[in-house]
């Protein structure tokens, strides 16, 4: 049986907007990936623990509240701390252009802004994630 790409889609912080995250979950599943959705309002600790426990190949963070500059570095640091720095992290939501260089510098591999198609996201994961 062909091994499927395992993806964790996570909602860090207080933000409750989950339409985008859920649509992506379905699109990735329909594209043949195994998708685990953390549900709303997870802490960085919960997200990292889930990623490790579920042995995922990539983490997708969805955030629209503006708290990404605080929460994303924390997630990256925790992954390093727990020896899981090899799990790539991508993100999407409402993230101002001016914050993107900083986020990429701390280790977010790609950021999908409003208007991104699910096709592009599926394509990126298939091209960039090795299992």
């Amino acid at each position, binding site marked *: 049986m062909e091994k499927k790409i395992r993806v964790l889609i996570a909602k860090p*912080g207080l933000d*409750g*907007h989950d339409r985008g995250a859920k649509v992506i979950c379905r699109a990735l599943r329909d594209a043949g990936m195994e998708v685990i959705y953390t549900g709303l309002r997870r802490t960085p600790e919960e997200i990292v623990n889930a990623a490790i426990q579920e042995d995922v190949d990539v983490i997708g963070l969805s955030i629209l509240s*503006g708290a990404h500059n605080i929460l994303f570095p924390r997630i990256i640091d925790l992954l390093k701390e727990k020896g899981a720095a090899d799990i790539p992290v991508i993100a999407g939501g409402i993230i101002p252009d001016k914050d993107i260089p900083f986020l990429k510098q701390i280790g977010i591999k790609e950021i999908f802004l*409003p208007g991104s198609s*699910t096709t592009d996201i599926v394509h990126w994961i298939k091209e960039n994630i090795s299992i």
Partner: protein
Amino acid sequence: MADKNKDKCKDKKDKATPFTHANPTDLALINQEYQKWKKLYEDALAQAPEKDKDLTTTSGRKVKELYTPSDVQKIDYLRDIGFPGEYPYTRGIHPTMYHGRYWTMRQFSGFGTAEDTNQRYKYLLANGQTGLSVAFHLPTLMGIDSDHPFAEGEIGKCGVAIDTLADMEILFDGIPLDKVSTSMTINPPAAVLWAMYIAVAEKQGVPKSIISGTIQNDILKEYIAQKTFIFPPRPSMKLIVDTFEYGAQEVPRWNTISISGYHIREAGATAAQELAFTLRDGIEYVEWALERGLKIDDFAPRLSFFFNAHNDFFEEIAKFRAARRIWAKVMKDRFGAKSPRSWWLRFHTQTSGVSLMAQQPYNNVIRVTIQALAAVMGGTQSLHTNSLDETYALPSEQAVTIALRTQQIIAHESGVINTIDPLGGSYYVEALTEAMEKEAWEYIRRIDDMGGMVKAIELGFPQREIMDSAYAYQQAIDKKEKIIVGVNAYQMEHEPIPILQIDETVTQKQLARLRQVKKMRNSGEVKRRLSDLKKAAEDDQNLMPYILACVKEYATLGEIIDTLKEVFGEYREPANF
């Protein structure tokens, strides 16, 4: 007034007033001619280079290429359409509509600290806004204080930071609460923020018997769509009925709920789902209030609604008209309300946030204009127009000014308000209104059969319907079956636009104030009031007076909500997709 309406209803039943004025012979002839025309249309279309694949609304509803009297032959003018201010209110809830009073121009607004937002409110009021609308930051929406670990990075970012009465006093400083009405978008903690508002008004010398406004306070749609829930459904419903009861007795000019479809639509619902789930939520609230022993005509006039104004112009107008008609029937027939005020569906509208695009953001001004026009032509009582920059940030002053001017130009320059319900009588709009009503009734029946809305939510029904619609919509966009200008067609690079920044000094200021409030207040009194609140919750008392007592002592929102969490518990939704 009630008797006059009753007689009219009786008269309407006796005399048929078919809307088309065409007898069956005429209708047969019209239909015959229509079929001939349709062949002409299809032949021409087959040759046309830009033929559309299918005619569907934004919601995916198939519509016809043309509507004729045949399409409205079952509609009776007096029974189904009627007059403005008369049952079933299809054409509007007031006889004069905008001739007596424009819709309230009420821009949803809030960011940073209470001082920042107070300034923005004064700016908007000075520029022609006629009502206030408060956007709270995420920690407040979730019932937690700015000094809670989960608030880190979130302070003042999505709305104004309010932790205690002290913040509320600053928020409304210099704003006379006897002269302006205020809507507050707040759900599980609604009772607390309402209590704070009441306390601020009292300090201004304005009694709660005359303050005017709305609390959103609609928990059902939180589980369905907006997701700012705290407690489980049943205690949440109890708290809401507490506000109905308290409002009816103590705060008679206040709308104690804004039964919302806006968020349901934003989460991905179709127009018909937005309509149906909102009204069925309304039915649920009425049932729970009646179960408490409240009299329908005592609280129903203070129920209000909140709808989305999305892209599809005619579908939205039909939706608003159908909403009024359905609710009037629900209140009169299902619940036996006697006062016409109980039959009126009064609503606020917001143009659709999710329809705005980050690409070429100035295009959003056009989107908002079309949507606002639909809301006005659909008879809204109150309107918020989104700002062009809201896919990036909270509205800048320049962007919110354009949004406000959009409403003013519609009101004063477009001419659409010169006649009431101008699209009444359109074959398309009446047929669409009827179709939407029919679809909504089907959903209402289905949810009734499930055992009501709380049960339907527990079963995951509305959530799944919405998720399916959202996914279908995204697929249509990704496949270019639905064109979004600037996103999957007409793409181009654009200059970055200036956006509102919330800087980290907001966090420092807010935390400093919170520390100060905690130092200055009487901690003993706070503890006592919180303890009284807990006991009242355990004893199933109406909690409003106890919450009011807590806020007056400067108990924090978090302290009050934590106290209630101890009694009510917390809700966690299953992580389905």
